[in-house]
């Protein structure tokens, strides 16, 4: 594979554009993770189960998301049932 083909296959030719796609994706990924963790929480999933599926420790997922979700749902979270923390 010559240099030109590689650039084309590898993505945008302009490095600035390529790097900015990375930032855009990272921001989107963070927002998507926050949304899906929130969705799971509202569906009654425990932190332990959410963490397991994400492949990280319970502490990690709790540290990253608990405060935000607690502030979104002050008092009792909606439809929360089953195992707690």
């Amino acid at each position, binding site marked *: 594979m010559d240099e030109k083909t590689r650039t084309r296959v590898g993505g945008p030719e302009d490095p600035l554009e390529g790097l900015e796609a990375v*930032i855009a994706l990272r921001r989107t990924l963070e927002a998507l993770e926050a949304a899906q963790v929130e969705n799971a929480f509202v569906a009654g999933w425990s932190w332990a189960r959410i963490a397991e599926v994400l492949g990280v420790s319970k502490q990690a997922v709790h540290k990253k998301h608990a405060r935000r979700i607690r502030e979104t749902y002050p008092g009792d979270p909606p439809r929360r049932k089953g195992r707690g923390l």
Partner: protein
Amino acid sequence: MCVEAAFDEARMLGHDSLGDEDLLLGILRADEGIAAEALSSLGVTLEGAREELEEMLSGALSSIGISLEEVRREAGDAFELRIPAYRRIPISPWAKKALVEARKEMRRIGDNYLGTEHVLLGILGNADGMAVRMLAGMGVSREVLEERLFELRGRAAG
């Protein structure tokens, strides 16, 4: 202060650091001083700038085959780019540079206060920066904006 407003804007848009484009949004949001006046006289509004940044984000994602709209639809209402207000974010290298340049501009012009116009000049000094490209996307060039800025200064002084 426009830097405080800039941090708010950055978090609102999901920026995990304060970028030079956020400094510009901060100037627009604080809506005071010659910089804000110059920007609005060229049709640059806070709303318009936020929309332009969203379009740039969406464009960057589609360059790698991802549709922001579809991600939004799939993730549901819980999806938002916003970062919680309690989270501290650092200042990006470009924003830092813009603030350093702002001080230099202030000295070069011979002013003894640091105003939004110096910050704006600092931002405009970086041709690669997000702010300059955002403005270009809104049809405003650095040259025109700088010219307007000095025009308004002249009027304020005279």
